[in-house]
């Protein structure tokens, strides 16, 4: 097949679908196993220096912050990250010095809240390497990874510099002659997700929009899930259509209420707007020690996410619940 045009972007994730399939055969148990463990142990066991990570949710929404903070706390290094609308999730990882490479669809911005100082510094200095994609393109790559094929033809990015800074290749469709862009599939090493409900075996329910978490779980080697509520498998069996991710994909399950704070957990709690604003302000300070102090206060100096929640305080958390349900906070 003749390549008509190609981008120069580097492929940061080297896993191929055929290797993944062989790996899965040997390493992923099919039996119903109790997969509950502590966040600390799950990160230690399943996240390694140099891994490629896919993060669930959408930037500020249903992001697995309890898992993110623990990755930073364990000072895991040289991660590559799928920046598939990544906002506060990737920002904390980058502030913590965990990230070397990013596949960018949307990063640096905090949507209406403006740009991140931390990410601007790291991307503008060239310290963190990048390739450019689109949100659709990253989802297509993950769908190819989940499907087990090495590339996928898409109809986006064509004709643009976004394409020229990706590893994409333009070819003519062998059936119709139409030009399409081929993108490499993506099989992340680890996928971290915060969900509404799961049972101890890793059957996962997500309420509201799923964003890309279903595909990411299917494409990835390891899947770590925190959930607002651990439920019995009887409840899962009563409504199995709600299982977005089935148990055999999941390696660890942790019940962690408020596990997306300061993010927005649909039907549970709204953003902690002030917390995110304070975090952004720390990152925008030209003195990097300001962000180090923030990380000390909220990550390094505390033992785990339960301690973090205690520090946030019950009143503030319950107010976020009121905001979610469009009630004026009363506490």
């Amino acid at each position: 097949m003749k390549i008509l045009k190609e981008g120069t972007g580097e492929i940061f994730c080297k896993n191929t679908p055929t290797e993944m399939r062989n790996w899965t055969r040997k390493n992923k148990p099919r039996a119903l196993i109790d997969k509950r463990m502590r966040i600390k142990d799950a990160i230690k066991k399943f996240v390694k220096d140099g891994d490629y990570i896919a993060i669930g949710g959408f930037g500020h929404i249903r992001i697995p912050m309890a898992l993110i903070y623990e990755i930073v706390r364990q000072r895991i290094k040289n991660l590559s990250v799928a920046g598939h609308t990544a906002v506060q999730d990737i920002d904390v990882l980058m502030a913590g010095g965990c990230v070397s490479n990013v596949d960018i669809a949307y990063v640096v911005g905090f949507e209406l809240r403006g740009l991140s100082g931390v990410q601007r510094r790291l991307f503008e200095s060239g310290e963190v390497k990048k390739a450019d994609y689109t949100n659709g393109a990253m989802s297509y790559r993950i769908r190819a990874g989940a499907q087990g094929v090495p590339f996928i033809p898409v109809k986006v990015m064509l004709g643009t510099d976004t394409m020229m800074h990706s590893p994409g290749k333009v070819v003519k469709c062998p059936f119709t002659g139409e030009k399409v862009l081929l993108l490499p599939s993506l099989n992340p090493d680890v996928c971290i997700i915060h969900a509404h409900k799961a049972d101890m075996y890793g059957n996962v329910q997500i309420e509201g929009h799923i964003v890309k978490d279903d595909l990411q779980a299917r494409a990835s080697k390891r899947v770590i899930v925190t959930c607002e509520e651990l439920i019995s498998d009887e409840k899962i069996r009563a409504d199995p259509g709600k299982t977005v991710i089935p148990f055999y994909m999941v390696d660890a399950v942790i019940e962690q209420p408020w596990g997306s704070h300061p993010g927005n957990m649909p039907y549970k709690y709204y953003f902690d707007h002030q917390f995110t604003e304070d975090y952004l302000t720390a990152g925008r300070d030209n003195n990097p020690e300001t962000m180090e102090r923030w990380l000390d206060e909220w990550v390094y100096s505390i033992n785990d996410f339960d301690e973090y929640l205690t520090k946030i305080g019950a009143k503030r958390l319950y107010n976020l619940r009121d905001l979610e349900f469009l009630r004026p906070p009363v506490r």
Partner: protein
Amino acid sequence: MAKKNYTLRELMAVVAARQLADGKSVAVGTGLPLVAAMLAQKTHAPNLVIFFEAGGIAPQLPTLPISVGDSRTIHKALCTTTLIDIMDTMRRGYIDYAFLGGAQIDSYGNLNSTMIGDNYDMPKVRFPGSGGANDFGSLAWETLIIMDRHSPRRFVEKVDFITTPGYLYGPNAREEEGLSPGTGPSKVITDLCLFDFDPETKVMRLIATHPGITVEDVIKATGFEFGISDNLGTTTPPTEDDLRIIHEVIDPEGRVFPK
């Protein structure tokens, strides 16, 4: 000229809203474009269907969401789905309009939301990148572009990086590169004026100025040559009702229109 009771940003939102026909569908992000889509729903286009790229379809938006995925974007929605499903839906031809913006735009409507500078590895400023913008600009039938702060720094001869395709380098360029026929930017709404694109040349064409703005003002603020329509008009100011809906119903917290 009588003292106006509205700001240019409010006028932009109203002009953008008027581009959306009833019974059509729109993919939208946050900010001014979303105010426009909500305003259209609450005025002339009650049957406008809103899609959010994170997976919210046809919500009944209570107030302005601050993120493309936040709970408000799925409030009383008819369907919650995945990002790829929204992109597939757009590719399959169900989505009429998409709203886009950027840091820079050129005469063909190509948008840059990726970087400023000429060195990709070490840009002067790194912006978020495409997000869903390139997907929207490639796949939606009609792209509506909103650009505030109309100036030669933003309306440039050549963008530093083509994040999202407009008409690329001229007539048939989109088709030549593999994008589907019948797609592309249709309007550019700025704080000075309203452009469309010349059907022959695919270059931006001035079709209306905002009240009090002259053609010379637009020429001075634009870093490239553009066409001028034979039927050059003036945009119609917001009604009292438009302004009330924007401030009291859509954005009571003043996130897009600070009080």
